């Protein structure tokens, strides 16, 4: 008798109670554990909080104006944009050939892929710790290696100089971003039928030309997904810089997330920290919306 459920107009597909029973658990979970704390964050940004954590009342935009008045803030924002941009750029240009490499057939492919996954499987926290130890100015592995290779004459305190430290931390961030990005690209590559490539080569196109004219354009959607996810992750990343330099020396390697943490837990400026966190969220939110619009993310849905 359940045949009655079938209606030629396809209406039978909609379950009777609508979407709520299906999506409500998700909504409740994220409302309780993501949106409520986020609401708290925004509320705190308009309040004065005492050093011991007591809420003293609303102060309007005072936290925001105090935050903007901080001389280091402009540099920190500039550094954050540079940090995110550099990492996303290098991750993309290394992931593209890496994904192509993983898409080849050779003996031991599975084992190689297993190794590439390592930085993704390990926590960013322990990877960053390992690099901190490898970069140690006295006992670090990199110093021994580079002295032995005669690239440097004597050990260098890599994390002691802001620019050098930042360059290394960018390298670490790219390193931990590579597995995810290249696997998404690999997934994209595998959706491209081999015939397409073969057809181009039969027509006499060189492998290089085939890649840029045929493969790369088809890879664009996967690349966009990978870039957006990587961008959000890097922008919100905290452990790499915190573990390796704590934003130091001074504030010279701070980005917004580490400075936010310092404001809250070092300087006991809860209100300003919340203001920065709110500001940070608004920036990434606007950016993602803009990005989705420009890249035509929803094109497929609208059709």
């Amino acid at each position: 008798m359940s045949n009655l459920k079938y209606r030629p107009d396809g209406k039978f597909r909609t379950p009777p109670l609508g979407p709520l029973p299906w999506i409500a658990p998700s909504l409740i979970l994220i409302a309780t554990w993501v949106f409520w704390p986020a609401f708290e964050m925004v509320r705190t940004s308009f309040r004065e909080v005492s050093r011991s954590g007591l809420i003293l009342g609303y102060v309007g935009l005072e936290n925001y104006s105090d935050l903007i008045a901080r001389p280091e803030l402009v540099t920190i924002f500039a550094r954050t944009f540079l940090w995110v941009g550099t990492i996303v750029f290098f991750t993309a240009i290394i992931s593209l050939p890496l994904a192509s490499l993983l898409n080849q057939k050779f003996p031991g492919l599975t084992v190689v892929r297993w190794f590439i996954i390592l930085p993704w499987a390990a926590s960013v926290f322990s990877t960053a710790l390992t690099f901190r130890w490898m970069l140690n100015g006295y006992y670090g592995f990199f110093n021994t290696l580079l002295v032995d290779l005669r690239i440097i004459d004597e050990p260098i305190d890599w994390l002691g100089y802001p620019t050098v430290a930042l360059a290394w931390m960018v390298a670490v961030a790219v390193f931990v971003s590579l597995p995810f990005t290249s696997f998404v690209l690999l997934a994209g590559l595998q959706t491209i039928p081999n015939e397409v490539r073969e057809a181009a080569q039969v027509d006499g196109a060189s492998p290089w030309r085939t890649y840029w004219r045929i493969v790369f354009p088809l890879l664009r959607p996967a690349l966009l997904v990978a870039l957006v996810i990587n961008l959000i992750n890097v922008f919100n990343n905290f452990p790499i810089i915190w573990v390796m330099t704590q934003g130091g020396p001074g504030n010279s390697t701070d980005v917004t997330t580490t400075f936010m943490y310092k404001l809250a837990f070092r300087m006991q400026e809860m209100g300003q920290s919340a203001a920065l966190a709110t500001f940070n969220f608004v920036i990434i939110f606007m950016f993602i919306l803009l990005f989705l619009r420009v890249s035509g993310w929803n094109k497929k849905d609208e059709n």
Partner: protein
Amino acid sequence: MKTKTFFKTTIISITAYAVAFIFAVPYLHMLTTATKPDDELFMMPATYLPSDWQWVNFIQTFENAPIGIYLRNSVIISLLATLVVLVVALPAAYYVARFKFRGKAIFLLLVLVTQMLSPVALVVGIYREVVTLGLVNTYLSLVLVSAAFNLAFAIWIMAGFFASIPSEIEDAAFIDGCSRFMAMRKITIPLALPGIATALIFTFIAAWNEFVIALTLTSTVDKRPLTVGINTFIGQYQVQWNYLFAAAFISIIPVVILFGSIQKWLVSGLTAGSIK
């Protein structure tokens, strides 16, 4: 022609092995540091390999710190978080993939927004909430926070997978008298298993590696996960690098095995998500 192919395969293989080695370096370094004797840690210049492999350090790590308890806590928290994500994300992903409904765009946007909020930014709010609910230093708080933060990714991957299974297959089952739940259980879920497994293992790994929230919400050894436990090797003045890396190395093994076990599905799991 054959020699050319052989030549090409050789070059590709050598490049791939070299890349694999570079990716392994930090983790090999973790292992070699973990097995160095105490006094060799602070030698200048640093040695590449331990002069004397102290495998006993792994045992001593367990004796010096309650690694067993940390491991147990990590397993409990990550498994429960994965279970919560399964129960909560699966129906949402299925519905999103199968139906158009009012508010679908808003729902997806809300889910996406959860990924834009940095845990560091939310840690104060979460702490206050946990205090209000009386859940300080409990598994439950860590489980729910981890589940909430990883829900978006799970929905994304599973929905991509469900969408790739033609709904005609389900329609056929309905005509044969299946209810929606039966069709889901007997047809859709088995077909989407690679995607579901991928999403769940991602959740498990993310929960396993979570650090900032667990650091704030746990106050005693018996509730602390391994990531926070490892952090205790970092003292005020000195870091016990060999024990620290022994513990860190132990913490990596289960996740690498898990990841390796879904390798075959990983790519197809991501494919479904990214072409959606």
